[in-house]
């Protein structure tokens, strides 16, 4: 133990792939139909939680008209997105400036019209904690757990606050709950590991009846500042599942390692996978093949999978582009790193491109060293679009995280650019 685990911070939000169960025989899938704070899964069914129009969905659950009803919501959601992102960053900014009263007031105003907004409630809990009101923060996160039992983030943050208070058994339970909702949630894993370490030390101290203060060396646990999307990828499950069969996988290992000791580590170094791997809700498991997106993936699915592309030159180009991206990242060459992303790159969440770049810059520059290795690389090229799947083994500042990642790339001139980056299958 003793690792310092830090904060994953994506201000703004991520777009959700929304699966709406309209009829028993199938799923309709809306890309960017809803912001996550408008909707989420409940009991395997997608429900809208709130909207700017008092549009409240549980009554409409499983209604055949549900899909239709979503359309106006979709528009308002997209339009309102920008304004809301501002609300989030304002609250966060106020909190950073120590203006907790104002931050909380603003959050409350926001929540008065959208009481089920998970993202703002998470943020409110964080502000309460920063304001030195752990009891309020516990209350906020605990009530989130009641309202959004499938979200790991509130459990994680609840665990962190319990750990702050040295209520380690409660912290452990909370982290375990976070992992129960998402077994591959690495932040909660690391936090739980630290809590195990601290509980273990406490047990040893009791066993030996000694009083070695563990508080001094207690590692800081990672708070999560963002509800991550359910499934941020545009790729359909069918498409991805087809990948290994369709194409003899081009197995390439791409590595980038860079040690740059000159950078002073930030107070809380940030672990990398800001987006947690996709959760597999029970409903998704039931009908994974219909998990589709209405844009690029739609046609691919309807056409059925077996049209194996054999453009090995394109494959090579795509892989070279991925290689450049990884190298730039490992070298902390931000110019090249950002250049790997296309103009129409869609950052996860409600973030603007600028906000995203700012955050990436802070995160990457904040690391003393970054090492990234990609394994199990699989590339599927279809015309001017490409899917790249791989396992990303990331190490930075003593933190090691392995996760699956998928990049969606498009050809722009002679180059392939990333237009979508997603963690998970």
């Amino acid at each position, binding site marked *: *133990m003793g690792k310092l685990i830090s904060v994953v911070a994506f201000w703004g939000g991520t777009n959700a792939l929304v699966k709406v169960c309209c009829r028993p025989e199938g799923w309709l899938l809306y890309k960017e139909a809803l912001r996550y704070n408008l909707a989420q899964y409940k009991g395997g069914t997608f429900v809208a939680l709130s909207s700017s129009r008092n549009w409240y969905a549980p009554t409409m659950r499983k209604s055949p008209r549900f899909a239709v009803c979503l359309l106006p919501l979709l528009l308002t959601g997209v339009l309102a997105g920008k304004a809301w992102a501002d609300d989030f960053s304002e609250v966060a900014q106020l909190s950073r400036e120590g203006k907790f009263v104002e931050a909380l007031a603003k959050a409350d105003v926001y929540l008065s019209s959208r009481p089920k907004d998970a993202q703002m409630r998470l943020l409110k809990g964080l502000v309460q904690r920063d304001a030195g009101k752990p009891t309020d923060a516990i209350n906020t996160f605990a009530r989130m757990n009641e309202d959004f039992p499938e979200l790991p983030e509130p459990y994680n943050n609840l665990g962190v606050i319990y750990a702050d208070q040295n209520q380690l058994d409660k912290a452990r339970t909370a982290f375990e709950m976070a992992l*129960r909702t998402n*077994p591959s949630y690495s932040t909660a894993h690391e936090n739980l590991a630290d809590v195990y370490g601290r509980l273990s030390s406490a047990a*040893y101290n009791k066993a*030996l009846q*000694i009083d070695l203060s563990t508080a001094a060396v207690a590692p800081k646990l990672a708070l999560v500042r963002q509800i991550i999307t359910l499934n941020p990828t545009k790729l359909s499950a069918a498409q991805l599942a087809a990948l290994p069969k369709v194409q003899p996988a081009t197995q390439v290992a791409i590595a980038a390692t860079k040690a740059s000791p000159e950078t002073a580590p930030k107070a809380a170094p940030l672990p990398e996978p800001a987006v947690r791997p996709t959760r597999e809700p029970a409903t998704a498991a039931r009908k994974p093949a219909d998990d589709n997106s209405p844009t690029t993936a739609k046609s691919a699915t309807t056409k059925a999978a077996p049209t194996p592309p054999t453009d090995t030159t394109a494959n090579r180009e795509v892989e070279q582009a991925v290689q450049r991206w990884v190298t730039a990242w490992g070298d902390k060459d931000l110019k090249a790193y950002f250049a790997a992303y296309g103009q129409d790159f869609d950052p996860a969440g409600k973030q603007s491109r600028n906000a995203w770049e700012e955050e990436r810059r802070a995160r990457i520059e904040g690391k003393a060293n970054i090492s990234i290795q990609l394994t199990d690389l699989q590339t599927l090229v279809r015309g001017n679009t490409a899917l790249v799947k791989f396992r990303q083994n990331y190490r930075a500042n003593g933190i090691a995280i392995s996760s699956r990642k998928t990049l969606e790339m498009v050809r722009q001139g002679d180059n392939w650019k990333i237009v979508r980056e997603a963690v998970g299958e």
Partner: protein
Amino acid sequence: MSDFLHSRASQPLISPKRWHSGRRAIAYLGLALTVVAFTLAHAGTAMAANTTAGLSRADGYSEQRLLEVFALMARGQSREALAKAEKLVQDYPHFQLAQLVYGDLLAARTRPLQTLGDMAPDTARAGAATLADLREETKQRIGNVKERPPEGFIPSQFLKMAPQTRSAIAIDASRSRLYLFENTTNGLQLKADYYVSVGKAGVSKSLEGDQRTPLGVYFISSRLDRKTLTDFYGVGALTLNYPNMLDVRRGKSGSGIWLHGTPPNQFARAPHSTDGCLVLSNPDIRTLIETTTVRNTPVVVASQLVWKSPKQLEDPAKSFAATLESWRTAKSSGDLKKTLAFYTPDFSSYGKSLDQFTPMLKAEMKATKGRNVELKDVSYFQWSDSAETMVVSFGEVSAGKRTGMHKRQYWVRSSNEWKIFFEGVH
């Protein structure tokens, strides 16, 4: 949660599967593995025993739960072991050994274990003595599971138990173990056994303050209620008649050797940690207090018990029965000289020499007026160290009388003849 377990196999930080790997982990597991086979069998009998003896309570249960944790660890079921250990420390937060194992199991969630009490070096240094004690305690508790007394065997000291004496206690200091027997129509039956702590300096007490636990045949001389005691003694105490008449004859000093419990902030003590007392955890001493009787219940304290089948003990028992019978016959006959021949020259009875005792013996014999002396409720326990001795208890009743005196005699064997070196009413 099994998903969680599986998913973590790929997580570098937490790898429960590493339980199975690593050469040094074997040392830990080796300890626990041996428990597996025995624990389950033992758990069954212990439970059954507790029920039949009416001891269906928590005595000895805490240890059994600890052993179950070890068994689960040995099977690689560290998650289940952790859950059980957690429950155990919740129920007995001052059970230090349970805390140690709990600490290990928590640590095992994040790294492979290498030893019992696999803590950071500075922690281990800060509590080095306690850690060594806890490891010794583990060895003793597990040793008891590995080597059980042979089924139906009893300690060789228990030659004859009066049916009226309902219980008996024997302590094997080398094993830190106390055995509780019930005296049934089928003889002594082992009902339970408990971890027990003895003197810091070990056993064979001879001097006051030597921090040793005496060895010999003792009896519970009184029962002390917790209300009259400080917290230090836990839920209560049973006092022993140390020094007994053999100890007095040997000039041993000291007093206040008790069986007692532990203070609220301590569940069990280290194997060698007392000033000579025999210390058990509170649930265990509570059972002893409830199942033993003052004056009657023998407490044999041996450095190492020798277990014999009841059949093996028949011959020495018969042999001594004949000796005791010849003494009874002599006394019944009214022949003082013949009777006095059974007493050693250095006989002593509560400070009286044989010369001072003789008139009393004479008076007793005169009172019987030649009637037969009958011995009721006879018990005798042999104790052999540098000398062969026998501790005898009985009720002495003249024929035709309904009441008599409870007497205790200490016999010693010299040149193949048993002689009485103490006799007194008790």
